[in-house]
């Protein structure tokens, strides 16, 4: 149903509105215009500042401005992006590069229409008190790694010849905090700050960024079915551009962005802490807008690196050709003036 609607919209699509500057006032909450193209978007985690740009783009009416009525599906842990993409339940999804490559290799014909992330946020953390100060010290130890996220740590341990037992953990770091494991993984923009706000000072922790060890697994990108990219390029372009504008607005007005995140989180009955979300938004800005530059480019070498790790670890059989994977739209804003 959604696909048909999208096709219909494409047939009588209007050219995207000229993006204005950042003074889009938040429109009154009226019923969305029926002439807007209905779009569904699936984030890959619960309401967080990780998705502030999308929330902002929706609530500030940017999607609307671009002629779309976007529904942001509240993520539940049992959702699988590949299922929903295959079924056409969703138009666009955000995903990390490795997960998307896996999806592609498993037969879901998705394409990357915009690569937002340029640097991996993944890290390993140890307590100084555990004595694990270098990668070598990890040899023979246990590492708590979230299920589904073993790829990167395995690659790291393999690269440096480390014999580390990977203990799958859920979404918290409590096993690490309670000294069940001496090593744990974390996102710089999320769990690392939670560790700090569980009572550890930065000088009490050792950090190991994957990107610093030559394992720059890129993260957020926007994906849709190749078919859609082909048949409705206008929608894809609009979605990406509107999303970028939403992100810029979020970076420019972080407190307002956090307000939205808190609202969404409360709606989903999730615990939410403003200072944590603020940290997350600030780190996203550091990771995704280094030097304030906007880019949606995916370098082939980064793609090949991630894909080769997947292949070498046996998670995919063959590397899907880059050309079949990366089909970026045109970004109206190439370079954003430095603030």
């Amino acid at each position, binding site marked *: 149903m959604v696909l048909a609607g999208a096709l219909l919209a494409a047939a009588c699509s209007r050219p995207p509105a000229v993006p204005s500057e950042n003074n889009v006032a938040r429109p009154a909450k009226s019923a969305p215009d029926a002439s807007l193209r209905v779009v569904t978007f699936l984030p890959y985690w619960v309401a967080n500042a990780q998705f502030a740009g999308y929330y902002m783009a929706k609530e500030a009416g940017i999607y609307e401005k671009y002629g779309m009525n976007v529904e942001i599906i509240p993520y539940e842990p*049992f959702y699988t992006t590949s299922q929903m993409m295959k079924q056409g339940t969703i138009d666009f999804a955000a995903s990390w590069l490795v997960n998307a490559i896996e999806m592609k290799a498993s037969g879901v014909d998705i394409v990357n229409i915009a690569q937002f992330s340029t640097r991996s946020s993944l890290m390993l953390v140890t307590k100084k008190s555990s004595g694990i100060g270098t990668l070598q010290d990890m040899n023979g130890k246990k590492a708590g790694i*979230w*299920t589904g996220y073993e790829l990167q740590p395995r690659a790291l341990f393999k690269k440096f010849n480390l014999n580390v037992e990977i*203990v*799958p*953990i*859920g979404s*918290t770091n*409590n*096993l690490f*905090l*309670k000294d*069940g*494991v001496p090593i744990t993984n974390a996102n710089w923009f999320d769990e690392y700050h939670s560790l*700090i*706000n*569980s*009572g550890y*000072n930065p000088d009490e922790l050792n950090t190991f960024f994957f990107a610093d060890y030559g394992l720059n697994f890129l993260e957020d990108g926007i994906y849709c079915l190749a078919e859609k990219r082909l048949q409705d390029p206008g929608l894809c372009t609009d979605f990406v551009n509107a999303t970028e504008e939403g992100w810029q607005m979020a970076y420019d007005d972080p407190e307002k962005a956090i307000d939205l995140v808190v609202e969404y989180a409360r709606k989903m*009955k999730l*615990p*939410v*802490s*403003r*200072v*944590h979300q603020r940290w997350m938004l600030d780190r996203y800005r550091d990771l995704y807008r280094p030097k304030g530059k906007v880019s949606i480019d995916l370098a082939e070498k980064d793609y090949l690196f991630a894909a080769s790790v997947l292949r070498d670890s046996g998670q995919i059989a063959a590397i899907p050709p880059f050309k079949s994977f990366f089909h970026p739209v045109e970004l109206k804003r190439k370079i954003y003036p430095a603030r």
Partner: protein
Amino acid sequence: MTFKFIVFIFASVAVVFALIVLYNYSISKAIVEKNLRANAENLTRKAVAQIEKVLIGFQKIPDNYSKIIESTDLTKASMLPILKQELISNPEIFGAALAFEPNVFGDGRKYYMAYYFRNRERIEAKILDDGQYEYFTMDWYQLPKELGRPDWSEPYFDEGAGNVIMSTYSVPLFRTVDGRKRFAGILTADVSLDWLEDIVGSIKVYETGYAFVISGNGTIVTHPMKEMMMNETIFSIAEAQKSPQLREIGRNMIRGRESFAELEYRNIKTGKMSWIAYAPIALNGWSIGIVFPVDELMADVNRLFARIGLLGAAGLVAILSIVILISVSITRPLRSLSRVSKKIAEGDFQAALPEIKTRDELKELHDSFAYMQDKLVEYIADLKETTSAREKIESELRIAREIQMGMIPHLFPPFPNLSELDLFAVLRPAKEVGGDLYDFFLLGEDELCFAIGDVSGKGVPASLFMAVTRTLLRSVAQQDGSPADFVSSLNKSLSDNNESCMFVTFFVGVLNLRTGEIRYANAGHNPPVLIRRNGDVDPLPLAPAMAVGASEEAVFAEASIRMEEGDKIFLYTDGVTEAANGAMEFYSVERLLATLARRSPDSPEILIQAVEQDLAAHVGGSPPWDDITMMAIVYYGDSRKVPPGPPAG
């Protein structure tokens, strides 16, 4: 001076007061803190005991049931009823679960979990074994498994339980396989933390104090600010409030430390400075904190402090008033005295001194002033008397001068009808009255008697003697006789009653108008100067003689000279020749003669003026020491004869 004095005293007293009050305050605060610490410890330990009692109560249930289950053969048939029973028998348990390791039942299944829970009045069951619920990495399963011991979970919200904060107590289950203990699965009990909220919420600390609980990760479990609960950790709050103190407190709390009202910080509920007491809840690694607002605890002390402050201020005001009063009581009479002094200085000697009633230094000062005032009045009265006496004498002296000047002939020209001679004379007494004299008068038609004299001394005594001399001269000259006779008579009379031993140098001459002959007698006087018509200037030759009045037996000689027509004779007293300038140089006879020679052709009046001028030039500004007398006579010859030439003049 007063102002400085007042300010200094006031400031000193104020400082002393302030120090005392501050000391009192700090001691009081220390006392309050000491008491507080004891109370805080009691309160905290009591709360911990209460909480742990409840927790133990909860723990016992799964602990016991785990034993029961372990003792079974671990089949579904045997375990599930036990699980259900756990729930039935224990209404405070909301839900209970059994979750197992893969293939525990030997049926190759990876997952098996049974969950019983309350749904309104009923107990419902859920079996999760199809992999949709991956529980192996859930904290409630993994932590007790990895840690090898029972574990209380981090608090969480459970929608199904009606949005209540819950915590799950998980107990690891073991079974013996091949003689070794093997981990088999987990037994859980979900309990609501309502009771925790009740216990903690009921801890009353004065008006605005409160208690709160944080989990082992610092998550706010219960707190009077409900929005904090579950959303924030104590560290995220510390971050939001930029309070490193709060972060430190949090770190101490999660590390299981205890402290009783030793730390002050700004509490997050009211932002007021508060003491905090905290202690660990060892059973689940959580911690309780109790907040004691400083201002409430210190309320009594602060009130006392305020009261003392007010009293102190009132005291200061009183002291200030007294100091002002005292200093004014000193300075007012001083200022009064000063004013009266000015009045006295300006001439109001009767000005009334201010009354001083006290018997102190001020009274002494007053008495000195009064004494001074009386003495001043006396002195001035004396002075007035003396002055008026002196004025009287001066005025009498002036009258005496007039009389004296009236005695000597002072009309010039004296004989306008006589063409035989011209005469001029001046007498300048050094004081009001003097001892010099000159006189001239006609004897019959043909003779002019002239005299000059100088009484010893000056002033009133000399003038009286001079008056006597002059009177006597006039009287003896009326009798027949020569100038020598005259002088002798004078001498006898003056020597007679001369108790004061005064004398007068004297020169008397008689000029015959027909012949121009002058018969003269001298008694110790300066020789007159004869100025001939041709300009020769010579002192008359005089025999040495005593002054008149000195000795009764003195004898006086007589001599004579002849004046030609146009000749002049100049008489003077030694006040002329002995007139001294500032350098004590006398005018001298030589200079007199020189002047006379220079002005020889002049008339007597002009001549005498010239000598006076020259004398004045010599003396400069020095006051005259002696009386100055000069007389000049010019003889024109017998008028009955025709004069040869015009008279000089």
